[in-house]
């Protein structure tokens, strides 16, 4: 018997050797990419020089010559705010609408998703119609409908609807009472935070005690007392340090109170109803993925419908739901850039719109904007991967 280990490679011509070919492909790819990048860069430098547009990131510290209606940080052109501040304003507005939108979309999406599986025929059909109608119409059109056809069609401030006491709705937005913090208000806020933390600690203690001894504690009542009662008590004891400033009609508009701009409302409502339709489908698929035997076993143990859903079905469904849910959250964040179409001052509108127009530094501005969205995406996927690793089924 001869040894079959091969000491020399079979005789093939160099052109048919897969390894040589692989290296050649990569060299060609790198060469093409390098050529493209080189061409693009030299052309861009040449074109920018001819159009007399500056390059570099110096413009971020130049004073911006415009104002923004909704800002979370102080921003005014007369106060010497820079383009860098405008960037922060836009970024915060994007994060604000995305954060609230995610919360609303999740709540609505879970309700609709569970409703689609309801044994109640009419509820299930209604949820289905909602999902199909919303999913098959472009988001941009829905934003236009919310902004132009619904909110802009509201009456002017003099004929506003009074939604509740001190809450007014008109075509300039939603006006609500604003809490004014007087000295001592910090105590009330501190009490509220302490109440929430206390409620969580109590719940953990109650659960542990129930696991050890089987005794149940009135978690709901105690939590309510801690979260609502404690701040209220401190509020009264500290001499009511928080007052409300009510919006009042002065001339043609309201003064005082807090104004929520219609652009924000339209974007928020549009984004959350749109994303909720997708979340509903994810939730439905997730619940259907939990085998029927799990529900039956829970019933056999004597659990009722509510606890079965809460303790058995949902925790297992979450494994299936969470990964696509994350990508919906990212979609919502990215879709918030459609603000540009209805004039909500988010990152895309303020920075990629106004700042780009004023400075003309397209390359830098667009690169920064893209980097921000990319960073949000990457951070979210990183966090989600960690969650997935923890939530994954541990198999033998």
């Amino acid at each position, binding site marked *: 018997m001869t040894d079959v280990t091969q000491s020399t490679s079979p005789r093939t011509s160099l052109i048919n050797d897969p390894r040589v070919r*692989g290296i050649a*492909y*990569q060299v060609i*790819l*790198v060469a093409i*990419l390098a050529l493209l990048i080189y*061409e*693009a860069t030299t*052309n*861009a430098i*040449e*074109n*920018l020089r001819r159009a007399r547009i500056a390059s570099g990131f110096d413009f971020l510290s130049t004073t911006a010559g415009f104002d923004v209606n909704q800002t979370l940080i102080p921003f005014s052109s007369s106060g010497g705010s820079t383009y860098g501040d405008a960037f922060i304003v836009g970024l915060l507005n994007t994060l604000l609408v995305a954060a609230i939108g995610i919360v609303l979309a999740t709540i609505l999406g879970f309700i609709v998703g569970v409703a689609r599986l*309801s*044994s*109640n*025929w*009419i*509820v299930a059909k*209604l949820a289905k119609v909602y999902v*199909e*109608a919303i*999913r*098959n*119409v*472009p*988001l*941009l*059109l829905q934003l*236009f*409908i919310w902004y*132009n*056809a619904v909110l802009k*069609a509201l009456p002017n401030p003099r004929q506003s609807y009074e939604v509740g006491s001190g809450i007014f709705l008109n075509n300039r937005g939603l006006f609500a009472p604003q809490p004014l913090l007087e000295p001592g208000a910090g105590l009330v806020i501190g009490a509220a935070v302490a109440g929430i933390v206390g409620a969580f600690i109590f719940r953990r203690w109650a659960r542990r005690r129930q696991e050890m001894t089987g005794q149940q504690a009135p978690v709901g009542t105690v939590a309510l007392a801690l979260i609502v009662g404690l701040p209220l008590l401190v509020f009264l004891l500290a001499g009511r340090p928080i007052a409300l400033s009510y919006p009042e009609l002065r001339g043609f508009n309201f003064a005082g109170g807090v104004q929520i701009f219609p652009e924000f409302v339209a974007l928020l409502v549009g984004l959350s109803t749109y994303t909720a339709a997708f979340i509903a489908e994810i939730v439905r698929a997730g619940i259907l993925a939990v085998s029927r035997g799990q529900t039956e076993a829970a019933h056999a143990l004597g659990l009722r419908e509510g606890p079965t859903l809460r303790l058995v079905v949902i925790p297992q469904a979450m494994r299936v739901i969470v990964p696509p849910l994350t990508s919906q959250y990212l979609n919502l964040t*990215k*879709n918030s*850039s*459609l603000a*540009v*179409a209805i004039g909500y001052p988010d990152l*895309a509108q303020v920075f*990629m719109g106004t700042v*780009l127009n004023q400075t003309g530094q*397209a*390359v830098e501005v*667009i690169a920064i*904007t*893209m980097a921000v*969205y*990319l960073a949000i*995406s*990457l951070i979210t996927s990183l966090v989600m991967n960690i969650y997935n690793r923890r939530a994954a089924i541990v198999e033998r």
Partner: protein
Amino acid sequence: MAITTEPVAYVRGTPIAEQPPPLMARGWVAWVRENLFSSVGNTILTLIALYIIYLVVPPAIRFFFLDAVWTGSDREACLAASVGREVGACWAYVDAKFSYFVYGSYPWDERWRVDIVFVLGAIGIAWLLWLDAPKRNLGALYFFVIFPVVAFILLRGSTAVGLERVDTSLWGGILVTLVVSIVGIVVSLPLGVLLALGRRSRLPLVRLASVIFIEVVRGVPLITVLFMANTMLPLFLPGNMSPDRLLRPLVGVALFASAYMAEVVRGGLQAIPKGQYEGAMSLGLGYWRMMRLIILPQALRIVIPGIVNTFIGLFKDTTLVSIVGIFDLIKTVEVTLVDPTWATPVTRLTGYAFAGLFYFICCYGMSRYSLAVERRLAAGQKR
């Protein structure tokens, strides 16, 4: 054993009359009881649902049908003051602007060219989507190579074939919406396949380049890609070369869609069992022949639903080109809204309803199709 012939006293000679089925166990009353009013909570839910329907449906029917104005030549027909009653949707406006919604400002005498392109495109799409159609390979060649070239010559015009040139700034409406989405799919499918192959390649640099492209594009909103195509494409090209206004967003949309397409195709590639690859290699096929003859035909077939879903997303996303100033359907609707001949309080909602209906019919139809294909593909696995 003898068979007894004596009549058995307790057996009836005739069947008794049929009784109606118990109403409480079957029939619609039982159905309603079981499905709508089985418990207190269920009854409350039913009532809430009925209330929502009552809030939405009757006003919608009133607005879109009963109170709607169907004929008229200008805004007078749709003004409550001149008609003397409550006015709903102003369909007369859609009727008057319909050709603008379809063709934009495309010259009247040349619109037959657009019609021919629509028919040719419909043939190509039907050929590809009908899974039992004859010669589907030829159909793919037609749709991805022949049709785009013919459509470009017909729409743009060329003096070589005796067609007057029509500048892309005159194109508009549904024509542009379809052009953007068809170009998107025609470019993104082959590019997506290449990127997907690149991402699964053994060559590290090819894989790296594909992963970076796919992840970066998928991580940013389409609107930033469109802005980039709009403002940076002219910068990257040499000197006085200024790309066509319509071409810029087309490049953006096509690149954007190919990253998403790549992920769909990659799903298909991963679903093919390893034995298929090994079988192909043991037959002595090289990489490209293995992919072309063995792997891709199977992989692409199982991802048809995914491709259609990506296309639905792409089709809805084409509306974003209106933000960078391209006259797609949304933009043409917006433009007609400032036309004083049709300025009424109901015009805006009517225009949006028309656009919404158009997108809904297209997207809903496609999603039904993709569900049907999915069911058909799953039929083999069913036991």
